[in-house]
Structures are given as structure tokens and as C-alpha cells.
């Protein structure tokens, strides 16, 4: 027996059957070098379950569990379905969805312009304006709602009075008021999503377009816009998602008139006040599913955005 063959196969790299396969990482405790794995992960999972997962599960289960008023499962589900498809609820979905969508589009336009100006141009006070973009994140929604309502209501003493006297526009307590509140809330999402993408764009690509004879508009339309459009869409979807669930600012500026200016979160609170917990849970489930749809869309967009940035 020669010396080489007494070494373990890992040492010389070859076995009679061919090259050594990499040893799979050992399972169990030894895999983690740093301490605290069980403690931190355990605490994370327990706290996550207590604050987020179990409460959400409680909501879902509430829509299928018989109660005193609805003693069988089919009755509970029937009631949930009835509340969720009630005209008043459906009107509130359309309102929440429609106005959030309009606000998100408005934010898409102004957010794009603002992100472009803040990344591409120099002007006095640029840093301060850039910092102010985050204001809607930092400001409690109730404060924003209070201020916007004072500005746009007829008796507030600011824009509301003149807008009504000169043009006949009523803004506060109408759907336009909700639109303004949701635009305020969603603005930073679009700007902050676009800024890093716009500043990462390679100048060479635009120079190449110019060398090939494109004018500035063509370069923008054919080169820049396609590259940033997934990020723009992501920002718009984030603003949309935030708008659909928003309550604090809308409660000030909307009259919450059923069928006209009542948003879904308000309807949930009314159901709770009426002690119709099953109905409230049903509406909550509808809103959860809406958020889920938005999250999935954003993640798909993020995937395409990352791929496109990787290629550029």
C-alpha cells in the first residue's frame, strides 16, 4: 500500500470513482458559526406570529366560523358574501379603487417630473426640496387631512372659497377632496422609487442615441423611458396600494356619504360599530385580497425592473 492511498480522498482530490464531490454542509447546530440563531429566529417567529400572523388568521377564520347569529357555516359564508357584494360595499370599492388609481396616475406624472428635475437639474434650494419630498411619510395623516380640508373647504379661508366663487368647484367633502388627500399621501413613493433608477442610467446610452441622430425627445421616448418604466410602474403601484388602505387623512376631507364618498375602511368601522363582526371581517378579507394582488404585481414589476437594469 503506497502513501498516497492512505490519505483521505478529500486530500488528493481523487477517488477511484473520479473527482471528490463537495461535502454537503452538515445539518444541525454546527452549520451556524455565529451564536444566537435559535434565540433570535425563535423570538422573531413568536413575535411575528403574535402581532401579525395569528391576528390575520383570526380575521380569515372569522369569515367561516359559525356564531350565535349565523349558526351554520353556509349562513356565515352567505352573510360574508352578502356584505361583500352589497351595493354600498361595491360602490365603496369602486370609490377606493378609482380614486386611488387616479391619485396614483397623478403621482406618476408629477412624481416622474419631480424625480427627473431632482436628479438631472441644478437649481437653488434643490437639497431642501428633495428633503421635503419625504414629508408625507413623516407627517401623521390626520395632520395632513386637517390642513388639506382647511385649505379646500369653502369656509376654511384659503383656496376653497375662491375656487367655489370663481369656478363653482367644490373640493372638500367631495371625491375631489379624497383625490387630493391620496395624492399627498402617495407622492413620495413614485419619486423615491424613480430617483435611484434615473441616477443609475448610463450617460453613454444617451450620448450614443444623440450620435445616431436622435433628438432629445426621441432619446427620451425611445431610450430613457423604456428603461425606467418598470420603476415608474412600481412607484405608481406602491402609491396605489397605500391609497387604497388610507383612512386617516380621508376621514377629514370626505363627508363619508354612503354610495358617494364612502371609502371601504370607513365601511369596516361602521360594521364594527353595528356589532356586525362577521360582515366587518368579510370586508377586511376583501381589502386583504386587494393588498395581496397589489403586492404580487409590485414584485413581478420589481423582477422585470431588476432584469432591465441588469441589462442596461
Amino acid at each position, binding site marked *: 500500500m503506497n502513501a498516497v492511498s492512505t490519505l483521505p480522498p478529500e486530500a488528493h482530490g481523487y477517488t477511484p470513482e473520479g473527482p471528490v464531490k463537495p461535502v454537503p454542509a452538515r445539518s444541525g447546530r454546527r452549520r451556524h458559526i455565529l451564536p444566537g440563531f435559535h434565540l433570535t429566529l425563535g423570538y422573531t417567529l413568536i*413575535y411575528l406570529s403574535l402581532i401579525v400572523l395569528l391576528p390575520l388568521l383570526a380575521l380569515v377564520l372569522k369569515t367561516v366560523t359559525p356564531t350565535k347569529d349565523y349558526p351554520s357555516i353556509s349562513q356565515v359564508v352567505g352573510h360574508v358574501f352578502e356584505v361583500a357584494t352589497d351595493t354600498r360595499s361595491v360602490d365603496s370599492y369602486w370609490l377606493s379603487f378609482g380614486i386611488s388609481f387616479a391619485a396614483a396616475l397623478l403621482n406618476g406624472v*408629477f412624481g416622474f417630473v419631480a424625480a427627473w428635475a431632482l436628479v438631472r*437639474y441644478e437649481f437653488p434650494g434643490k437639497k431642501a426640496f428633495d428633503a421635503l419630498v419625504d414629508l408625507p411619510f413623516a407627517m401623521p395623516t390626520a395632520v395632513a387631512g386637517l390642513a388639506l380640508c382647511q385649505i379646500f373647504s369653502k369656509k376654511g379661508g384659503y383656496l376653497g372659497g375662491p375656487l367655489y366663487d370663481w369656478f363653482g368647484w367644490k373640493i372638500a367633502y367631495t371625491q375631489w377632496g379624497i383625490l387630493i388627500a391620496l395624492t399627498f399621501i402617495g407622492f413620495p413613493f413614485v419619486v*423615491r422609487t424613480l430617483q435611484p433608477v434615473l441616477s443609475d442610467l448610463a450617460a453613454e446610452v444617451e450620448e450614443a442615441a444623440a450620435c445616431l441622430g436622435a433628438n432629445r425627445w426621441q432619446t427620451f421616448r425611445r431610450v430613457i423611458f423604456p428603461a425606467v418604466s418598470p420603476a415608474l410602474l412600481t412607484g405608481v403601484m406602491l402609491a396605489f396600494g397605500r391609497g387604497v388602505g388610507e*383612512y386617516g387623512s380621508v376621514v377629514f376631507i370626505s363627508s363619508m356619504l354612503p354610495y358617494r364618498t364612502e371609502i371601504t*375602511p370607513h365601511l369596516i368601522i361602521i360594521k364594527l360599530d353595528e356589532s356586525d363582526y362577521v360582515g366587518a371581517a368579510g370586508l377586511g378579507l376583501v381589502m386583504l385580497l386587494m393588498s395581496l394582488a*397589489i403586492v404580487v404585481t409590485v414584485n413581478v414589476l420589481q423582477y422585470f425592473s431588476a432584469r432591465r437594469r441588469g441589462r442596461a
Partner: protein
Amino acid sequence: MKRATTDPWLARYLLIGMTLGFILVFLIFPVCVILIEALRHGLAVYFSALSADHSINAIRMTLMVAVTVVPLNTVFGVCAAWAITHFKFPGKSLLVSMIEIPLWVSPVVGGLVFALIFGRQGWLGKWLEAHEIQIMFAFPGIVLATAFVTFPFVARGLIPLMQAQGCAEEEAALTLGANGWQLFWRVTFPKIKWGVLYGMILCNARAMGEFGAVSVMAGSVDDKMTMPLQIENYYQALGPDALSRAFALASLLLLLSAVTLAIKIGLEWRRLAPSYARPPKPELVH
């Protein structure tokens, strides 16, 4: 020199004008309105509005909620970030997504889920009533709802930060004989302290300003109103007195957001913390 990447001056001025116009009308104007309305009748009225019983109560309630919720979510955030960034385990990206759930869910739903558990007809309603434990319409309920909506803030800031820092220094400390506790306080914590502060600031701003979730849990119980709820209460009460009280309370919350924004920007400009608004980059998560 005109370069290929320079826009025509007309487009430049138009876009800058639109940006400044939007920020002035939508962001700066409302701030001015709050300050003008709060101080309209002079400082004496302002301070008497702030020292009204309901206002004092609301301020105390808001501070108590924030003091309870922020440490809870901070401990969670540090634990979650440690587990996620330092170890490999199955289901990690699922965990990261689950931590972000409260960012996506409507705050009213965040309150609703606890109402369905602790309310009179909720899962535990009967039992709580029999044992005379009050959670809904009381401090614990408000804390739970606030904890739900502010849940991801600390973790979300720390995960990309700790991911970028890696764990080579921790491993070095380990070879030099540090135990887990020493490792965290002497090596890791000094590296992440600004990130923790950043998360706490954002968590605190949201905790103090939360409306939807808290309004479900607090109902209309007068002495359980936090500041945002009390502002709405004053606003609905109508009358000049109530209105000036609403704006006085709002100005305090405005001050809070100004401080939040200042610290946040300070940390971002020094590159001590990542910007919260940016969605997490997919490659950082895995």
C-alpha cells in the same frame, strides 16, 4: 458647453417649475396652514388650547403608546435582522416578505384583526369579559394595533444595512473568544447603532401619528384618545375653540414630523442609513 445629455432650456424650466409648484402647493402650503391656524389667536390662546384637559390626556396617551411600542418593535427588529442576515435557513425570503405585511395592509384592517380577537364578539371576548380584562377600547388594544402598523420599520432598515456589512468582524471576534453577548454589544451594535436609531425614529413617527388602526381599537372612549384621534374629535365638534385646539395639537405632531425628517435626512446624507422609501433591492434579500 452643450452636451448630448442636456435638455432644451424650455423643458428644463418647465419641469423645474412643475416640481417646485407641486411641492409648494401640496407639501409646504399645508404646513404653513397648520402653523397659521394654530398661532392665529396668539400664543396665550395656543398654550391654553394645548393645556385643555382633553389635549393633555391625548398627549399623555400618545407618549405612553410610543414609549411602549417603539422598544418592543426595536428588539424584534434587531433580532429579526440578526437571524436573517447572519444565518442560512429555509424560508428566509418568505420570512422577509411576511415581516413587510403590515406595510401593505390597510391600517383599519390592522385594527380590525385585533377587534375580532378582543372585541365583545371576538374570539376571546367572552373569556375576557368573564375575567374583567379590558383590551379593546383600552391601552393594551391601542398598543397592539400600533405595534401591528409599525411592525416592519426597524427590521426593514436594518436588514439591508447588516447584509451589506457582512459578518467577518463577528467571526473574528468569535475566534478571539468573545461570547455572544460581548459579540453583540462590542462588535455588532457599534456598527448598526445609527441604523437602529433610524428605524426607531420612523417607527416612533408612525406610532405617534397612526390614525386608522388606533381609531378602531380606541372607539370613541374619551380618555383613550391619542393625539390624532383627539384632533379629529375636536374637528368634528366644530366651534372656534375646538378648531384652535385641533390645530394646536396638529402643530405638535407637525413638530414631531419636522424632527423626524431632520434626523432622517441627517442620517441619510451622512450615509449612515439607507433610504426607507426605496423598495428593498431583491438581491439584498437572499
